[in-house]
């Protein structure tokens, strides 16, 4: 279980996260919704160790991650599928997958090869294009690759930052189908999204993040979908 407790993160003078509390339970899909600039990606980067929390703690299965380096966080089984996918454009699909297992490369070659085969079994499309350079893939294929690459680290929790961003509606459906399948296979997922409608369908629990604060926590259905969508895109109206 991932627990974010009262986390504050700033860029210089500007506080992007003003004390965020949330938990992502093992085996579930937990979703964080919110408009642009609410601090969703900041939270992801703080969990991944790229940004440092100024206050608060982040714990994962009783290990305090707050002061860990990004390398140690990956070692502890936390993998990020970054916003905009960020595949390595001039590497082949297979090489991209191998970078995902970077911390194990050189220690056990056959295990990595097995994991690549497992990714190909899960995403047959990736096997068909395994020798293509990742930059030549379509957006949906790149997203699939980014997910596969993160899974290559054998994570205990998968952080996904806006996997639907910039994809055609049909492809978005595919991506969310993949998220459901991964979850059924036992992968814990913490999903950050703007596409509230799709996210609510897969989420077991969801949070709303607005202007650096959690403004709602509950299960889908507890809040009217229209209101969630409104607040996920635009934020609450000021009183």
């Amino acid at each position: 279980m991932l627990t974010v407790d009262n986390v504050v993160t700033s860029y210089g003078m500007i506080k992007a996260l003003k004390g965020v509390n949330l938990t992502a339970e093992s085996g579930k899909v937990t979703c964080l919704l919110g408009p642009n600039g609410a601090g969703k990606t900041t939270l992801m980067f703080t969990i991944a160790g790229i940004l440092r929390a100024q206050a608060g703690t982040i714990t994962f299965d009783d290990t305090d991650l707050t002061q860990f380096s990004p390398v140690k966080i990956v070692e502890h089984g936390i993998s990020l599928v970054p916003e905009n996918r960020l595949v390595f454009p001039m590497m082949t699909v297979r090489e991209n997958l191998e970078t995902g297992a970077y911390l194990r490369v050189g220690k056990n070659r056959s295990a990595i090869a097995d994991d690549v085969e497992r990714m190909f079994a899960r995403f047959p499309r990736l096997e068909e294009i395994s020798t293509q350079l990742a930059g030549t893939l379509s957006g949906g294929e790149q997203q699939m690759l980014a997910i596969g690459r993160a899974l290559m680290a054998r994570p205990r929790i998968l952080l996904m930052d806006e996997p639907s961003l910039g994809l055609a509606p049909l492809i978005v459906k595919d991506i969310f189908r993949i998220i459901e399948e991964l979850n059924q296979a036992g992968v814990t997922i913490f999903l950050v999204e703007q596409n509230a409608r799709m996210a609510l369908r897969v989420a077991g629990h969801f949070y709303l993040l607005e202007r650096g604060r959690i403004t709602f926590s509950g299960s889908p259905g507890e809040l009217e979908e229209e209101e969630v969508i409104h607040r996920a895109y635009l934020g609450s109206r000021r009183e």
Partner: protein
Amino acid sequence: MTDFIQNCIDGVMIGSSYALLAIGFTIVFGVLRRLNLAYGPSIMLGAFVGTLLYVQFQAQILAVALVTVIGAVLAGMYVERLCFWAIRRGAALASMVSSFAIWMQLEEIAVIILPERTYPFPALTDLAPLEIGPYFLRSEHLTMFVVAVVLVIVVHAVLYRTRFGLAVRAVSENPDAARFMGINIDAVMFWAFAMVSAIGGIAGFLILATDQQVTPYFGLWATFKGLIAMMLGGMGSLPGAILGGLILGIVETQSLWYLGNDYKDLSAYFLLFLILIIRPGGIFGHAMSEREREALRRV
């Protein structure tokens, strides 16, 4: 025609050492997205320590080679810590300017070690040139060429067959994504720098053993040759660095023969000028394969 071909042979041999210098620049540029102007001077400092050993203690050629390479690597690490590690990402200009300052510093250190202008450097071999039909092949040149080919193969193997190489390529393509994979970017940059300095040290040793003399200006010279060769081929491209080095070598030997010594460097600059006008990104900067260009466009 015989002259022309002879010049081409010499040019390729000399150009192979330029190619090594250009590879050094291009790898650092690829990984750090910054220029290291102190690359030549750090090689020069290594060579000066080697020369000191040779002049003072009549050291063996292999010892001189070893000390030159180790000296270049240590100087390179020093440059990396000061100009690149200490100055964080995003400040490319600050890094370049400080690498220029370190250049001056390294030259001063060299002058303190050995205060005269010119010092002898041990020759690699005293074998007679090889004769192949009407053509001559200097044994130093042949050594230079063979070592360069071996080093290029080694660098390629390191980049495409090892864990470290995977990390170097990942950082070159996208440092942010590399970090998400658990790659320690600082460590990758440091060791890439060390590797590149070792390559530079070897190239510097081979060049100086051919010239049989060394001056503090070797640093300037090596930075110039490496930069020009890299820009000819296209920044950040490994095949570009090799091609750029070879072309530079050939153009220099041809213009030395046909136009005289005064025009040797001028011709090289003119060529660079032409290439940058026709293909602003260098030869391989634009002549990337169709699939690579496609790959970059989509991202």
